[in-house]
């Protein structure tokens, strides 16, 4: 015991420890001592910290964080007690059904509901006339109505809604509604969307781009764009086609609306973004927000497909208001596909350049994405297709043109890996090609071009922590890469792919981040000692309730069973933005920690008052608060709590999280900004049947840097689930539109999600880079892990047969077509005689290996050094790392407006810039 620590007289007697009294401290009546193996070195524990200490170290009590924890609501789910959207049954309910457009694009001339109204059992009918206000998830692009007003924009667009006593009556009533349409020319090919049209699908008023169907366009130039091709020793060029895909979650959308006798609405719905829905409901129903309680039910999977406010939710509320009875609307699977918001069908041109030293001297990307008939998150998606591949590599130039067009299809939107997945696939496949051209190992090529920790990307994103290098190295080892790559027989191959993803979007959609926090958490502890957590974070099955409970339990040194989370109702929970952009763990757990720290302080102060010891020397553990060096001096958690409550009853605390100021100033600089980023590297091993073109993924080694695995069990689950979902997009999933423009496979038999038989053996590898700002060092694990599986499989197919994939999914017929082409090119008639790519290392390999080794040391030095200098993208190209390169050289550009030179010969999506906005043409309407 050090001299400056006073000895205190107060000693808690063993017999007086009130743990075993019912309700006094969790279900376990016995002591569980602090596990020193989980207490970090910085706090005198035994947990080594190769990545340095963390600001939350002193809060570690070894109660919950880092333990493999089954989700706290898992029992509800496995016993069938959990109530999902359609499980909400209110007395006297009506069934709502929706009449949908049979036409791709048409003007509604009239809607006659009189025959349907006359049908016995029909209680209420709604049409577009019942709600004129527009809504949409992004305030800048509100373009949806509860029910079509004037125009229907795709087959399946909502026209009218009926509430009836039972389903059969409601369906019958739909047939009696007479709608007179004037059919308009529809467009289905996204390329057509770039051209002027007589009847654009939406009218953006003075902001309308030309008379075209362009919803959003982006132009960005960074770095030494002008002479990339000249500087290049190798260039990759590809033109990709990505099919549109749907989330394929298990639970179809469902909503139940009920107006109570005080005129308040409760809307029950499986939602990822209850708060955005809350706002939209107020707009559409024209009532104040406080009159609405949004009740998030259990969510049977979301993946971005439940992260818009939806027309059917409005319809349920409108019908319930009209009928005065609760109304339940549940979709069938076809309606889920017609609502969609899945990954955009895309055409992506990818050009990558490497110089003679194997540096990535330029990335030029052009992404045309098919938004379908509404904006949804598309504004953001258009940016993400570009900016999210400016890392993890240090690059010499970045040129991006992106455009999102409207077509008469169900709307595309946000889906796991939002906007990053397709172009990431194209980049990683391009790198594989560059390595092939340069005859170097693709792993080494990557390792020699990584941005370090505490650096800034070319567009100014702030990378705090990165475990990219460790991911690559672990995967290399686990997959036995050295003995497999380019060494396996025909039809058997291995490939690598990396990923980079945001851990929370830096911009709260509806307000200035400096004004309100992103996430708020309330805690309440009354005499029973149980902690109630109020949060608006939407648990969509990803485990957000569990992670917030774990965070609170950890700080207060309590077992998980003492924490109860109330996250379902907007009436009781503080505003949270919702479950998207992999923000929940980072932001919500940070908010929970800061609330718990306040309670912790109160408990420490109370303990100090009882024992007379100094609060600064106390620790929490084992449901006790005690002096670290003299554990007998202390009190039980309950004694401290009751002391703290003496004057004022229940303890309450509120904690909030907001992002630090960050990012640069160019237009669009906020897109892709995040307080932290995750990194991942996967190696995939595949077998390709060269006679049939069938691809089977047999092994995946999946390393993901999630910062810190607060719950390793969920992180592994996310990794394995991501492999499954990403594999679907690579191998078989696609929303197929036929020659008439109709969706041909809006059901789960014909929309081919891989089954258990298609699943490879996945080895999840967790890398913990200890993010300085993340809760206990955590970042994200929800979306990033999806990205690398696509390119890893594509690159493995190349290794196996020598086919450079540029169209997803790689269905057997597509691969077979490519094999036939390859046979012709190689002059063989039997595909079994094909020769596969070989690797004969060039002299560049050694240069890269040397640079990778130097960078490895650089990265270790940086992450373990507090007073570290800034590092800006560009240093690898000889610029002063401490300043952005554009502040050092005129060669180095930052530009977001195309030059006339570019416009003379634009790329595909870039051609969106040939139009002028109406307001600049002086003919605003």
């Amino acid at each position: 015991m050090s001299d400056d620590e006073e000895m205190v007289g107060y000693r808690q007697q063993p017999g007086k420890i009130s743990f075993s009294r019912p309700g006094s401290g969790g279900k376990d009546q016995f002591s569980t001592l602090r596990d020193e193996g989980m207490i970090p070195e910085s706090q005198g524990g035994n947990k080594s910290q190769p990545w340095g200490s963390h600001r939350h170290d002193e809060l570690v009590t070894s109660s919950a964080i880092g333990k493999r924890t089954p989700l706290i609501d898992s029992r509800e789910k496995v016993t069938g007690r959990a109530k999902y959207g359609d499980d909400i049954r209110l007395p006297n309910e009506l069934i709502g059904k929706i009449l949908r457009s049979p036409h791709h694009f048409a003007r509604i001339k009239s809607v006659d509901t009189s025959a349907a109204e006359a049908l016995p059992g029909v209680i209420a009918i709604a049409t577009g006339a019942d709600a004129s206000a527009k809504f949409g998830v992004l305030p800048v692009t509100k373009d949806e109505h509860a029910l079509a007003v004037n125009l229907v924009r795709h087959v399946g667009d909502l026209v009218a809604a009926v509430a009836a006593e039972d389903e059969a009556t409601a369906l019958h009533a739909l047939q009696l509604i007479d709608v007179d349409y004037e059919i308009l020319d529809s467009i289905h090919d996204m390329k057509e969307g770039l051209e002027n049209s007589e009847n654009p699908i939406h009218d953006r008023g003075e902001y309308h781009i030309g008379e075209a169907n362009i919803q959003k366009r982006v132009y960005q130039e960074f770095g030494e764009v002008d002479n990339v091709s000249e500087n290049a020793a190798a260039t990759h060029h590809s033109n990709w086609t990505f099919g549109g895909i749907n989330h394929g979650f298990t639970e179809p959308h469902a909503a139940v609306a009920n107006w109570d006798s005080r005129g308040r609405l409760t809307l029950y719905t499986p939602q990822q973004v209850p708060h955005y829905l809350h706002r939209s409901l107020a707009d559409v129903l024209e009532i104040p927000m406080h009159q609405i309680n949004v009740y998030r039910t259990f969510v049977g999977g979301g993946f971005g497909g439940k992260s818009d406010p939806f027309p059917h939710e409005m319809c349920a509320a409108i019908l319930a208001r009209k009928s005065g009875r609760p109304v339940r609307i549940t979709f069938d699977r076809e309606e889920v596909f017609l609502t969609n918001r899945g990954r955009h069908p895309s055409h992506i041109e990818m050009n990558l350049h490497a110089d003679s030293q194997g540096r990535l001297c330029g990335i030029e990307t052009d992404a045309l994405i098919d938004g379908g008939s509404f904006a949804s998150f598309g504004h953001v998606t258009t940016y993400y297709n570009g900016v999210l591949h400016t890392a993890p590599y240090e690059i010499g130039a970045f040129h991006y043109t992106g455009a999102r067009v409207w077509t008469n299809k169900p709307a595309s939107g946000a889906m796991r890996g939002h906007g990053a997945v397709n172009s990431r696939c194209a980049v990683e496949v391009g790198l594989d090609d560059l390595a092939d051209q340069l005859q170097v190992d693709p792993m080494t090529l990557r390792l020699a071009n990584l941005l370090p920790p505490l650096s800034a990307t070319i567009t100014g994103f702030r990378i705090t922590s990165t475990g990219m290098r460790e991911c690559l190295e672990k995967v290399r080892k686990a997959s036995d890469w050295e003995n497999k790559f380019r060494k396996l027989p025909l039809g058997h191959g291995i490939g690598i792919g990396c990923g980079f993803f945001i851990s929370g979007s830096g911009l709260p959609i509806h307000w200035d981040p400096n004004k309100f926090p992103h996430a708020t958490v309330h805690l309440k502890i009354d005499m029973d000692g149980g902690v109630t957590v109020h949060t608006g974070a939407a648990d969509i099955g990803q485990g957000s309730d569990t992670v917030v409970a774990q965070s609170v339990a950890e700080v207060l040194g309590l077992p998980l069973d003492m924490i109860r989370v109330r996250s379902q109702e907007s009436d009781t929970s503080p505003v949270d933005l919702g479950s998207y952009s992999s923000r929940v763990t980072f932001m919500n757990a940070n908010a929970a920690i800061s609330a718990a720290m306040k309670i912790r302080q109160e408990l420490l102060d109370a303990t100090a008052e009882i024992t007379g010891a100094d609060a600064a020397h106390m620790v929490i553990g084992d449901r006790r608060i005690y002096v670290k060096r003299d554990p007998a001096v202390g009190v039980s958690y309950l004694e401290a709590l009751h002391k703290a409550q003496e004057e004022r009853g229940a303890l309450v605390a509120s904690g909030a999280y907001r992002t630090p100021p960050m990012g640069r100033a160019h237009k669009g600089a906020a897109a892709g900004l995040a307080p932290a980023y995750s990194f991942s590297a996967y190696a995939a091993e595949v077998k390709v049947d060269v006679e049939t073109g069938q691809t089977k993924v047999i092994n995946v080694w999946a390393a993901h840097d999630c910062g810190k695995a607060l719950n390793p069990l969920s992180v592994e689950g996310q990794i394995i689930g991501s492999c499954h979902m990403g594999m679907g997009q690579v191998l078989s999933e696609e929303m197929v539109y036929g020659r008439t423009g109709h969706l041909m496979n809006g059901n789960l038999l014909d929309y081919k999600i891989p089954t258990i038989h298609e699943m490879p053996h996945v080895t999840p590898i967790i890398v913990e880079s200890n993010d300085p700002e993340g809760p206990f060092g955590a970042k994200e694990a929800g979306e990033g892990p999806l990205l690398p599986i696509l390119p890893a499989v594509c690159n493995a197919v190349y290794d196996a047969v020598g086919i450079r994939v540029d169209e997803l999914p790689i269905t057997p017929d597509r691969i077979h077509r490519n094999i036939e082409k390859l046979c012709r090119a190689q002059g063989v008639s039997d595909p079994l005689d094909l020769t596969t790519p070989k690797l004969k290392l060039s002299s560049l390999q050694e240069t890269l290996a040397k640079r990778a080794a130097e960078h490895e040391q650089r990265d270790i030095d940086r992450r373990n050094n507090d007073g570290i200098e800034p590092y800006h993208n560009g240093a690898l190209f000889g610029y002063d790392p401490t300043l952005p390169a554009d502040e050092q050289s005129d060669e180095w550009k930052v530009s977001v407006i195309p030059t006339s030179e570019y416009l003379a010969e634009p790329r595909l999506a870039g051609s969106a810039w040939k139009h002028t906005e109406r307001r600049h043409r002086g003919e605003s309407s």
Partner: protein
Amino acid sequence: MPNNLAEAMEVAGRFIAAGEEFDWIAGGTDLIPNYKWHLNPKPNVISLANISELNQLTRTHIGAMVRLQDLTENEEMHPLLATAAGSIASVMIRRSATVGGNICLDTRCFWYNQSEDWRQSIDWCHKCDCGTEADCRVIQNQNDLCVATYQADLAPALICLNATIHLASPNGLREMPLSDFFELDGMKKNVLNRGEIVTHITLLEDSYSLIGTYHKLSQRETWDFPEAGIAATWDGKSLSSLKIASTGIESIPRDHSEQVEAAIESWNGSQSIDELSESVRKSVKPVNNTGFQPSYRRKMVKVLTRRSLKQLGIK
């Protein structure tokens, strides 16, 4: 719900006399999804579930109501049947799905196997035209033929095992080789008359001396209907015993005896394997109404045939 064959015939007879439409329902795994989508639903269904005569399963007698899963689990049965049955749908579906239902499976087409709203949106098609006299969407400008695809897995295996199918109707019993049961018409599908049912399939004990293979082309290893399926058998000695049959290509399963006979006339080892596979490919004409492109499916017929022959050890 009739309790024996006689009762079933009587109920059917009554509906026929009254001019009322009906369908037989066995496991319902095909019929019920079709009814939900309003694909030619009838006002009445007659369930075969209680007719114990149809449940019999021996080496030589397979009742129409035998569940597919039972075929895969019964070690007495010819391994080819277990393989073919085991490739169908999933275990859960196979526990309901029956042999009779599989043989009588409705033909499939992506313009047809869609919800009612969807089909209305394309103004229907010939097979379920709702009185509009709509055209076929696959082969247009002819509205008297449906070319929907027969995608059941059991038939080619049974054809290769020389199975006989047995039918019963209020007018009596009849039987025929299985390949004669089908009719090249996506709507009529087979020879069954109104009120007639499949009672069982018989195999000769001799069939058990044949060895067989079944190769199925599909996107996924489970759930998916065959985009092409090739069954083949022989006795391991004499080429003249060789049989090949296909499914998933046209509106009926095909017996390829014609191609086989032509090939064995001048058999010349592995070159003949290629030639026979090629002539089987040439003999089939898939259309564009399933997941994969018809040209690909046709090419795969050749690959699968070649694989089957090699696997059978034919030289």
